[in-house]
């Protein structure tokens, strides 16, 4: 059993989400995303106009994953998921698509993270929050929080992990 230093997230978890994000968007939306970097933050704040949040629980601990997109990036990705134009993407499509992306990315990552564990990680159903400047409440403060930044066609979106180890 490994001991996790307070205020950090282990590399296995970061790699799992980094690879899952690239894989899911590449396969489902035929979209190449570039990992641009990661930074530690104390606040768990959305960075975009539309965010999807999903809970994850396992043997090692539990946490929250948040995907956050500018509205135009969300429209672009959802249009590619559906094989339509951005103009044809409705608000409902955007919300549902961003929620499903959180589900697929977290599902893909949890498989990578669960390797060797007796009990696989479990996910909650995703929630989607919409609106410029929206915020998330109820987040456990002072827990490790990592923001990963990805680039798509000159624009960025983020995947944030807040994870509390047991």
């Amino acid at each position, binding site marked *: 059993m490994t001991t996790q230093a307070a205020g950090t997230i282990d590399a296995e978890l970061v790699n799992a989400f980094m690879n899952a994000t690239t894989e899911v968007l590449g396969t489902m939306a035929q979209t190449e995303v570039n990992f641009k970097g990661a930074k530690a933050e104390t606040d768990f704040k959305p960075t975009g106009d539309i965010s999807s949040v999903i809970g994850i629980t396992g043997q090692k601990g539990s946490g929250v994953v948040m995907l956050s997109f500018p509205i135009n990036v969300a429209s672009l990705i*959802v249009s590619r998921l*559906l094989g339509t134009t951005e103009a044809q993407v409705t608000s409902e499509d955007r919300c*549902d*698509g961003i*929620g499903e992306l959180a589900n*697929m990315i*977290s599902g*893909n990552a949890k498989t990578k993270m669960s390797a060797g564990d007796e009990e696989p990680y479990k*996910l909650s*159903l995703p929630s989607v929050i919409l609106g410029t400047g929206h915020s998330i409440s109820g987040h456990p403060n002072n827990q490790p929080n990592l923001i990963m930044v990805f680039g798509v066609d000159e624009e960025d979106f983020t995947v944030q992990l807040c994870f509390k180890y047991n």
Partner: protein
Amino acid sequence: MKILSVDDSAIIRKIICGCVDVLGYDFLEAENGQQALDILSDQYQDVQLILLDWNMPVMDGYETLTKLKADDRFKEIPVMMVTTESEKTNIIAAMKAGAKHYVVKPFSQEDLTSRIVECMGLAV
């Protein structure tokens, strides 16, 4: 003839609808297992394949699968799980419960269409 997609995500149902269209089948959709059972009660004789998600509100995919296989009206309809659940224990549980195929999300439309063709024993 019809293919039924059971998934709480409208986006996934739309993507699957695209695959079904290509194959020339009619498309039915349900947001959860209970809704799927309700639809099947009326239309089971026309349904050739069920694509079933695992994690859904109201009634999840595994419970739905066990109910389908326990009902004489529905048990012969092939079921393909289409889900993010990719742990070996889940795959084994679904196959033991009677699923014919298991597809893990993410998938490309081409791959899913091929799996549908394979599952239904259609000529390519």
